């Protein structure tokens, strides 16, 4: 399997704090990777560096074999790496449909047309299709402000996905969603992304959620990758149990 994303000796310091310490990761096409780690372990920093929001202090990031260090988020996005956000980043005053149409138009061309309408049947069809896939088509014409949290998270992801990225980074897709909704929400998301055959890397706290979908886990602790591998081995790893997941997980992990 060819490697899509690779980081080499990635460091990030904020003054005294080290948010990333010698992070070496390589992810292959089609993988579904879960990133775990307690708060401040460096998960989001990792995503922010990979997507160009933060510039690493040292190290190298290769996307499809090309360095993306110092490139802007938008050029990285155009290169095929999309992301969603811990707190859904939407256009609140616009309708759900328009949110997606804008995402689509943005993906189509870096130079939006000045006179051709945003809404054309082809775009609308695609937007409705993806809304359908996430089964939130009912919200099509309502303002984002009138939409519940869970749905917003889905819109956020749909907007990232509608541009057909090769890789999708999901930053805590279930944060701010009630425990009941979580599994259902993740099920929907995972079905859709698998259908789109896109490499996925997502940050998640809930181990049950993680183990349920991923083929591989990255465990972060204070900026370092503590363990990297298939779920059972990583969750069985003693230090992971000690530092990341905590006792009860150890037992589960062992018996898995």
């Amino acid at each position, binding site marked *: 399997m060819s490697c899509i994303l690779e980081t080499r000796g990635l460091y990030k310091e904020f003054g005294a704090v080290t948010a990333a310490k010698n992070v070496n990761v390589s992810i292959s096409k089609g993988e579904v990777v879960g990133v775990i780690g307690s708060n401040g372990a460096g998960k989001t920093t990792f995503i922010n560096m990979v*997507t160009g929001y933060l510039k690493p202090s040292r190290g190298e990031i290769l996307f499809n074999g090309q360095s993306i260090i110092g490139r*802007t*988020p*938008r*050029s990285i*996005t*155009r290169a095929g790496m*999309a*992301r969603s*956000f811990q707190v859904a*980043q*939407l*256009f*609140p*005053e*616009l309708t759900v449909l*328009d949110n997606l*149409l*804008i*995402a689509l*138009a*943005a*993906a189509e*061309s*870096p*130079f*939006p*047309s*000045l*006179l*051709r*309408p*945003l*809404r054309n049947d082809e775009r609308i069809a695609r937007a409705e299709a993806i809304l359908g896939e996430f089964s939130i088509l*009912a919200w099509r*014409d*309502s*303002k984002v402000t*009138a939409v519940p949290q869970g749905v917003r998270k889905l819109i956020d992801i749909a*907007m*990232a996905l509608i*541009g057909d990225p090769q890789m999708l980074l999901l930053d805590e897709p279930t944060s701010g969603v009630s425990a009941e909704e979580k599994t259902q929400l993740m099920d929907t998301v995972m079905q859709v992304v698998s259908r789109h055959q896109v490499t996925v890397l997502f940050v998640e706290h809930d181990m049950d959620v993680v183990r349920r979908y991923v083929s591989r886990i990255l465990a972060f602790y204070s900026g370092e990758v503590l363990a990297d591998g298939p779920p059972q081995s990583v969750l069985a790893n003693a230090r992971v149990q000690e530092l990341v997941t905590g006792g009860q997980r150890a037992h589960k992990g062992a018996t898995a």
Partner: protein
Amino acid sequence: MRLDKTELILLGVAAVLAIGGLIAPQWLVFLLTMALAKSMVVQGVVMQMRAGLVTFGQGLYFCMGGYAVGMSGHFLAISDLPSLLLIGVAAAVALAMILGLLMTRYREIFFAMLSLAFSMILYGMLVKSPALGSTDGFNVKAWTLFGWSPAAGQAPLALFVIIVAASAVLAVLLHRYGRSSAGAMCEAIRENEVRVEYLGQSPRWVLYMNYVAAAGVSALGGGFMALAAGHIDPEMAYWITSGEFVFIALLGGTAHVAAPIIAAILFAVVRTYAIELVPHSWQMILGFTLLAIIVFLPKGLWSLFSGRARAAKAVEAKV
């Protein structure tokens, strides 16, 4: 090109206005001409408001347009109206392409203040130029249209018809721009710039286009103003003038392309009477009106008319 209903209505109304000009009293024709010229500048302000930017310096391009027209008349002996206006727009666009590089780095108040600073610099330079009449400005030469020069006393009416046509075409274009991907992108930037960046779109590029386009539109208004009033002075670039454009923009709101036009006309009528009836306190009237709009009609006068629309949407949202 297919016209949607709004555009058909716009053109229809324009036709009616143009014909109405033939029977309306001259002073009214002139008042409307001035109002329409202003409304073009306001369109420029509104274009940027939709992208979340308020400019207190649109007078810069208003003035550029005016002076370009006046100066090409005086120094280049050009009298052909379209070429004059074109020169004005070109000059403004050229300047905007330079300033835009800087302006698009700023948002919110910094944008407002920096735009103000630039227009005040132009004001300062003009005041410093005796060759251009300093604060007195200078009179603009009479215009011709493809070699035809209007008979004495007919110029105001002719210009009125021309500016009505121009406004209508402009309105149609801006209406399309508003619905275009670029127009949508402007609103998206207003709503959430970071997300736009993460959609692979460059907010600065979009804002840059928008800024330059707005400058051109405003310059067109300035050019018409110069031709209508027959005189230009640095006052056009003074920040109070720009403030007035913001005022009119808020009066109309950003909801519809016709809003600035209607707002500009109402503003002109109200002001004319305010000056006549309460010459000592019409500023105060404007002030209270402005507050009332902000408090009661945050979306501008237009929300009066489109109120039902939003009610309807609210219902849609429920289901």
